[in-house]
Structures are given as structure tokens and as C-alpha cells.
């Protein structure tokens, strides 16, 4: 179980700015309890290993460790990924940050401009095993996997392309639709939307797609 019986989700906050942690703590609603806070890579790994919270809200840029930031925290806890889920929270829009933490195993990516209720919602969603895509992350996915029909034909591997439905879902999310709105727009259930998003997340994490590499190279990520 990722949530306690009372429906309260325990989280650990990892961010190197005290002010920001205080702000996040204050903006989370009553169903989310902050178990602990850490401010660098090593402290974060130690705390996550000690507390095993269902959700870790994690900044992408962190001091300490070997300089890998949030992605390093996730790789340091790879064996716990079945119980502990990571939600990346970043001020940065940079593609390399997004790709690094998602490929390390984060279940979601939101920017720090997110509102309190939305963040609480994202935490609950991640705790429930779903993936959380911000509009911008959906945009990255479309950019990386290609939006046009011409891009689909290049790879045969199932991991290397989005299905038509997944692409539609990604486009709606990029257009600012919530999961609920996506569901009603496409006449499918929210659960189906969630499973599409999880499938895309899996592809983003596992794909060795040549376009993804090319895309990363174009942005000097490799």
C-alpha cells in the first residue's frame, strides 16, 4: 500500500533551499504529511532508505554526491523503486534535466510554478502508481518521439514510438488539459488516460529510440 489507511500520503521533501521547502510544505493540503526534509544528495539517499516514504518530492538540482543532482538520488535508491516513487519538481525547463530524472526512474515531472492543490494532486497520483506529466513534459515527449506520421515509420520497436492514442493524450496534456478533461474529450475513462500516460512514461524511460538520441544530441545532452 502506498497510502496509509486514513488516506494520508507521506512524503519526503528534497530541495536545497530552506525557503522553498517551507513553501512547498505550506502549500500541500491536509492529506499529505511531510515526514522529513533533506537538502543534499547524500542526506536524501540516507533519509529515503531510512524512512521508505511512498513518495519523494525531489528537486532536480541538488548539491552533494558526485554532482548528479536529483537523478543521482534516484539511481542511489533504484532497489527501492517498487515502494518509493519519485516526483521531480524543478525550476528548470531544460530538456537535459527532465530527461535525466525521468530516465533515472522518476514517475513524474512538474515545474515549481505549480499551484499547491495541483502539487498535492500530483503527489497523490504518483503515490497511486500513476505518472504525472506537466504540459511541458508532454511537449518534450512529442518533440522527442516525433509528432508527424513521417516519424512513426522509422522504428519498428514497440518502445520506439507512440501509439496514435498515446500521441493524442500527450497532445491534449500539452494543450493544458487535465486528465479528467482529456478523458471526456476522448470519451475514455480517467483510468485509461492514466494507463496511456504510464505507457508513455515507460517508453520514455526505456526507449533507445534513435530519434530520442538525435533529439538529445541536438540539445547537447550526450
Amino acid at each position: 500500500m502506498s497510502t496509509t489507511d486514513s488516506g494520508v500520503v507521506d512524503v519526503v521533501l528534497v530541495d536545497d533551499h530552506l525557503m522553498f521547502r517551507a513553501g512547498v510544505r505550506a502549500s500541500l493540503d491536509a492529506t499529505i504529511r511531510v515526514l522529513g526534509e533533506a537538502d543534499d544528495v547524500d542526506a536524501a539517499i540516507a533519509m529515503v532508505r531510512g524512512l521508505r516514504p511512498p513518495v519523494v518530492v525531489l528537486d532536480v538540482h541538488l548539491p552533494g554526491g558526485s554532482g548528479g543532482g536529483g537523478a543521482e538520488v534516484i539511481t542511489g535508491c533504484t532497489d527501492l523503486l517498487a515502494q518509493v516513487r519519485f516526483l521531480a519538481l524543478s525550476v528548470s525547463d531544460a530538456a537535459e534535466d527532465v530527461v535525466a530524472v525521468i530516465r533515472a526512474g522518476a514517475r513524474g515531472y512538474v515545474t515549481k510554478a505549480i499551484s499547491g492543490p495541483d502539487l498535492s494532486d500530483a503527489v497523490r497520483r504518483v503515490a497511486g502508481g500513476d505518472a504525472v506529466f506537466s504540459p511541458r513534459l508532454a511537449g518534450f515527449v512529442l518533440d522527442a518521439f516525433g509528432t508527424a506520421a513521417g516519424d512513426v515509420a522509422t522504428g519498428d520497436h514497440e518502445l520506439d514510438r507512440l501509439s496514435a492514442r498515446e500521441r493524442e493524450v500527450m497532445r491534449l496534456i500539452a494543450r493544458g488539459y487535465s486528465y479528467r478533461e482529456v478523458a471526456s474529450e476522448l470519451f475514455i475513462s480517467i483510468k485509461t488516460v492514466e494507463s496511456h500516460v504510464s505507457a508513455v512514461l515507460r517508453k520514455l524511460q526505456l526507449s533507445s529510440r534513435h530519434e530520442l538520441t538525435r533529439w538529445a544530441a541536438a540539445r547537447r545532452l550526450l
Partner: protein
Amino acid sequence: MTSVGLLPLRRPPRGRVLGGVAAGLAAHLDLPIGLVRLVLVLLVPLGGSGLALYVWFWVTVPAGDPTALAAQRPAALSRIAPHLRQPGRRIPLTDIGLGLLLLLGAGLLVAARQGVDLTYSWALPALLGLGGTALAWSQLDTMQRDRMLARAGGRTPVSVVRLLGGTVLTGLGIFLLVGRDEPMDDLLRSAVAAIAVLAGAALVLAPWWLRLVRELGDERAARAREAERADIAAHLHDSVLQTLALIRARASQPEDVARLARAQERELRAWLYDDRPTPGTSLAAELGIVVAEIEDARGAAIETVVVGDRVPDAATESLLQATREALVNAVVHGLAPVSLYLEVGPDLVEVFVRDHGEGFCLDDVPADRFGVRESIIGRVVRRGGTASVQCKPGRGTEVHLTLPVTAG
């Protein structure tokens, strides 16, 4: 040659016979290649000056495509992956020729030593030595390419082979030249001694050389860091510190503070994370400017997502204008959050502008409301695109613009 500037002096990979010097000079001086070759050949009898000139240019002028250099990729296409360019694969005829020549020389030399008496025996070692030197010096010509390869992560053993081959050949040439009257045994023994001395010297000097190389690399990195730090400091001073001072001065006016902070955040973000495309080459960048203007003027936040990019043209300019109107409409009449999505496909550019207000239905809009009909829909339709407004109760309003484009 009127207003067109001279092409840079490079030795082009195509159209070369030997080293590409004549072709490069012809392109640089905008003269027919035949004329350049003729002049070079005519200069040869004049004390070999044509030959010397040729070798000089060969060694000093870097290889490259002058026309490609002149027409650098105009792209904010830096956002888009460059197309792989297949280099024209050609058989290295000159290299093979040079190798054969050297082999011939070596063969003749060996023959001479075996008893065939060649009176010009001094010439061959000299030739051999010259050939080796040329081989080693041809390094200079490939150095640039090697450096690029090294940066891209690749490493060619070619330069090492060149250097080794050149050294061996030159050594052999000098050796034979100096000891051409000695018996074979003495020669061999002294060769071994010489090599041993060289190896000893290399062993002693290696750490010193390594340190020199490392120090050079460190210094270069330090200088790059220093320049970057100065760059960042200058930028922070120009923008962020100024904005902070302004914010402090206007602390009592929350709207101004929010506007300043947002503008500064956007600018810093663009500076830190985005590629800086050349103006006029990126639709995404132009959209960013439009969004920034509206955010500043109206004090609203617009969540912008862009997929793909292209070089803007007149049609996308109309699309941008229509997008601007749609955004203003959403910010003024709609409710936050406002989302903007731009997708550039190979033959279609799409824009979605969405807000969470009650919206307006196109049929309800009176014909005299010039704003929506003319400035949003008319602009796009005139360019062969489509425009539609979708609004559902409780789900906000979404303006959808499409514009067909030609691949580019």
C-alpha cells in the same frame, strides 16, 4: 565580383588533383582553375618557386569547403538536429601515390646496397627523408579535422600512423645518407645504438612532456572557465541585479513587482537554458517574444509548450499575429490558466490557445466584433489555414488555428 565578398581560402575536398591548392586559390580569387594551375606550372622553372608556393599553401591552408563556410547553416535550426552529411568518399589517390613513390625509393635503395651501383645513391636517402618529412608535416593539414573529431568523441589513429611513418622514413633516410659508405654490419649496430639512445631519452623526457601537456590542458580549461564566469557575472549584473534594485524600489506595488519578477525570470531562463538562435530563423523564438509581450503588458502567465520549429515566413507571421490576438482575447476575457501549444509538423503548423473562462461561441459573436472574426480567423484563412473556436460549459474555451506549410 561586385558586392559578393571573397570566399575564404580553403582547400576544397572536391575538384582537387593533388592537394586542392589550385582549386582553393581559384575559388578564393574567383579565377578559372585552369589559369591558376597554368600560372603555378609556369612558375616552376623559375627556381622551383611554383612548387615551393604549392607546398607552402598545401601545408598552411586548412582543408575545407569554402562555399559551405561562406553559407553557414542559417539555422536556429540549432534547435533541430542537423542532417547527417555524408562526406564524399574518395579514394586517397595522392596518399597511395606518395606511398608507392616512397616504396619505390626504398626498393631502389635496398637494391643499391645489395650491389647494384647507383651513382646517385645520395639522392635516394635524401628523397626518402624528404618524403618522411612531408608525411609528418601533412599532419598540420589534418590537424583541424582531427581536433573536431576528438571533440565529437572519436579519435583517429591516422595522425599517429602518419607521425610514426614519417619519423621512421626520415630516420631511415638520414641514416642511409650519413652512413652510405659504411658496411652493413656497422650500420645495423649503430642503428641499434641510436634507437637505444632515443628510447632512453624518451623514457627520461616522457614525464616532463606529459606534465607539459596536462598543464596546457588545465590552463586552457581554466581560461575557458574564467571567461564563462566573467560572462555570467556581466549578465547577472546587467539584468538580475538591476531588476532586484527595481523590485526593492517598488516593494509597495505588488503588481509591478510581480511583473518585474516574471520578466526577469523569463529572461534568465532563456539565457540559461535555451539555445540562442539567430533572429529571424526560429518560429519558436518569435512566439516566445509574442508571449513575453503579452505577459508583460497584461500581467498574466501563459503556459507555453512548443513542439518542433521552423524558419518563419510570411504565412507563419500571419499565424503569429492571429495567435497574439487569441492570447490577448484569452487573457482579457477568459480565466487563468491560459495555455498555448504550438506544434510544427512537416506540412502543418497548429496553434491551440486555451483558457478556462466561460468562452464565446462564434455564432454568438456579433458580426461587428472585428476582433475575433477579422484579426484571428481572417488572418489565418487568407493564408489557406483554418480557425475554429471550441467552447464547452465548464471546460473553458479553446481557439485552434492551423496553417498548411511547405516542408522546409
